[in-house]
């Protein structure tokens, strides 16, 4: 199945944060339909070339791959607002390495809607010449969008790249996931080269404390909600 086909299958699931119902999209984006708002986190554009600068010549197609997946999910939901939740660029000079085509692709995505770049630890000083608004955090109703999670109620954050593994009878599979307990959520990384951190890592316990939380795993055809305690 191609990626496009996978995306076109009924692929969204509800994920509640502070009484707001979001749709957890199979692509790893979060959609607030009433507000026509779409959030993606941790694009890590130009991670490939960032490694290349240090002599590890990863295929230089990650930016193209990430942007085309982003274009697909934007096309399906036609949001009024797009929030890029930080670490959109892998390093401080990553935006300078964007190809002209990639820049054009970004502008095309921005046209006709509001675009907010939230800064992250990888991209604390965002470029002014890429369109959109730059912010440290954004509040909409009861929801706060920021890059690094603090554990506050009503918070939607990224930064940790959650992934979860489910095992049964000697087989197992690992996927990126949303992590949420109904009051706060951490988004999966959207970037093609963004790795993951297991939700059983202590970093998640810091955010969710002793509370039970759920991993919304990005499967092949749909998003699966599975208790974090069931994952490894």
């Amino acid at each position, binding site marked *: 199945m191609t990626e496009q086909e996978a995306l076109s299958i009924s692929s969204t699931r509800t994920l509640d944060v502070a009484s707001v119902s979001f749709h957890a999209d199979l692509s790893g984006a979060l959609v607030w339909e009433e507000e026509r708002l779409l959030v993606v986190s941790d694009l890590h554009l130009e991670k490939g070339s960032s490694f290349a*600068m240090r002599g590890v010549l990863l295929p*230089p197609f990650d930016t193209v791959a990430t942007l085309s997946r982003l274009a697909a999910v934007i096309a399906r939901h036609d949001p009024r607002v797009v929030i890029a939740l930080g670490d959109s660029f892998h390093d401080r000079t990553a935006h300078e390495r964007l190809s002209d085509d990639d820049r054009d692709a970004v502008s095309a995505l921005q046209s006709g809607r509001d675009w907010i770049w939230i800064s992250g630890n990888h991209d604390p000083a965002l470029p002014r010449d890429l369109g959109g608004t730059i912010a440290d955090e954004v509040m909409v109703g009861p929801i706060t969008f920021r890059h690094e999670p603090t554990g506050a109620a009503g918070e939607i954050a990224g930064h940790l790249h959650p992934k979860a593994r489910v095992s049964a009878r000697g087989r*197992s*599979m690992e996927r990126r996931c949303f992590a949420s307990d109904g009051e706060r959520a951490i988004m999966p990384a959207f970037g093609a*080269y963004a790795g993951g951190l297991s939700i059983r890592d202590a970093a998640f316990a810091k955010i969710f404390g002793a509370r039970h939380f759920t991993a919304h795993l990005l*499967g092949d055809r749909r998003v699966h909600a*599975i208790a974090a*305690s069931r994952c490894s």
Partner: protein
Amino acid sequence: MPPPILTVSAEPAALLPDRFLRWFAGRGWSPREHQMALLEKAREDRSALLIAPTGAGKTLAGFLPTLVELSSPRSEKSNVVSTGRAVQRSGGLHTLYISPLKALAVDIARNLERPIAEMGLPIKVETRTGDTPVSRRQRQRRYPPDILLTTPEQLALLLSSDDGPFLFSSLKRIVLDELHALVTSKRGDLLSLGLARLWRLAPQMRAIGLSATVAEPEQLARFLMPQPDGQARSADIVTAGGAAPPVVEMLDTRERLPWSGHSARHALSEVYELIKENKTTLVFVNTRSQAEMLFQDLWRMNDDGLAIALHHGSLDVAQRRKVEDAMAAGRLRGVVCTSSLDLGVDWGDVDLVINIGAPKGASRLMQRIGRANHRFDEASRAVLVPANRFEVLECRVAIDAIAENAQDTPPLRLGALDVLAQHVLGCACGEPFLSDELYREVRTAAPYADLARNDFDDVVDFVATGGYALKTYERFARIKQDKQGRFRVANPRVRQSYRLNVGTIVEETMLKVRLVRSRSTGTGSTGAIARGGRVLGEIEEVFIEGLSPGDTFVFGGEVVRYEALAEDQVYVSRAHDKDPKVPSYMGGKFPLSTYLAERVRKLLDDGRAWRGLPEQVRDWLSLQRDVSHVPGVRELLVETFPRGNKHYLICYPFEGRLAHQTLGMLLTRRLERARARPLGFVANEYSVAIWGLGDASFMIRNGQLNLDALFSPDMLGDDLEAWLAESALMKRTFRNCAIISGLIERRFTGEEKSRRQVLFSTDLVYDVLRKHQADHVLLRAARADAATGLLDLRRLGDMLARIRGRITHKELDHVSPLAVPALLEIGRESVYGEASDELLVEAAEELVRQAMG
């Protein structure tokens, strides 16, 4: 057909100097014919391949020409200029010895010292392995010994150093030990490229290969000679004759033969008796977990307190050394071991080899049996213990093959492109190279003799800038051309990274297993466990990923409970269960050889030959003939039948587990498309069984499912493509290529971080590269590996071609005798198949059930 034994025209006295003759006589020996033959080859300035069984004095034969040459003062003194600095030496490095194991190199050095000392020869022997201190390595490069014993990886490192040309220009001989084992892997490719370089640096160098008996000695002999453009050239072949044929029997068990499984538990007491009756017994099994299980079982019944030990590659090194030392000292009665003991080191007086389970291949079995006796003229003794009925067939044909001295070693490899990439980078670390020259040089290596120019250029391009269609990495190039067009490394960091990452052995990610006290409070608790604990050994990460906390498995000779995973440490506690919950049989590394598979099919086809089988097995086959069908040599039997509320389709290609696993994966996809609603499958060495909700019998009867179409070779087209996109096996194959080629570094300069933290996921690279540059050289390398490696595509393709138009379908009311083993494996063996959404759905539903109470 083994090549004829070469007769030696000259008398020993003509070839051997006096002090050698006296030395032989003093020990009551006379030089063996093949030892003299190699001396004669040396005198004629020819390269030679010696084919000899274990115990034939192979190593001495290989070194004899060197010892003789070095025993007289060298005729011409050579002055060689090192990089910038003239160094006077008497002779320089004369002989290089390459072994697949560093332990073997060290062992051989010890064995060489004796004749050298006893004859008072003026010869200096040194080893060079990963363990050799830096100061000695530096000294060796400047002031080389006469004979240097080392490994393929160390040779690559030496060749990539500035001193390479200086060091090797004087080289007269190279001795390649256990060549049959080296050439079957990418290490052989690396070695062949090293040889190609040596032939250029030292055109006078002659090679001696030492090998066990192989199927195609001519092919192996090519490895030892530079291949001139377009023609095949082989070294002379010398075959040692006169070895006593081994005595191999199949255990005639008093017990009932199991239908399935690999533990051979039924024969445990008989195995124990054999150990008791003999002085020292090696008990070979195919996998680590089998070794664990058997060792544990033997100890449970060891009322006589026999000294029985366990040896496998995942055990802690210190523990392995202890076993090896006890073995060498003759203190052990039995060692349960895996292929970690297949090669190399001399084990002294082993008088019996027991092989538990499937022999897999005739040559492989023969080499194992060879461990039993290092006295050439006495017969080795071996007992084969089949663990189930199919394995009885396999043991039977293996014994017949050994009696005929038939060999089934694999054909010579085609050189891999990822290994070539590593070599090209290594070359650029030494003196700069021109593409045209290096291309010519590389093609003198037998595995690369047919390398196409565009493949070579793509590899060079990959090493330089990644070889991507998107040319954005020019400024990050790792190797750059100077004005004359010669490539050299762009900066010292690249050289350092090459040196840290040289080699082609990509180990599975292993985790340390530590024994701690259990968290006593039930399951599901997240209470902290005590850190620390005794290290039991290492285990594959892949295996641990399939476990949930609380699952039990066998490790280090006992049943343990999986507690937790933290960083690269697995914490387990002692479990008191007798049987582990999770089977860890992973099928062993090698599938049933094509040759033995064909013999098994012939045996089945020939009812008269069944007389050579135990009665239980004869009855089983006869019943199969009565209720269903016994397939012919080229025929494929497909059976369909209902069982419980599911429908089964089982086929018997006899092509080995790896090809069957791939077949199962592809058939399941096709059956899904045909709406037969398959649920899962198991694959073993002999058959593939698929079960599902759709009634396959009915569908075949009504023409909704056409078996010829189902098994059509076109499944290796689009279906394969679609599967490869997400196959975990393919991703693992790609990861190996990415690491060997140097795209991803295994070891990093500078800070020491655990690999779990820093390793970039090659799965992400695979996904992106596949979509954006499907013909990239690394994907080509991975596909070439998939043809013969974990996916065994070539064998699957050959099978599909063989059975075309020869499918026999039997619609049955219930399970057939031949199908019982596979069906018993369902639930006991891990179910093959890529885990998919279904696994997640299951996990989610399980939660719902729990919630609903």
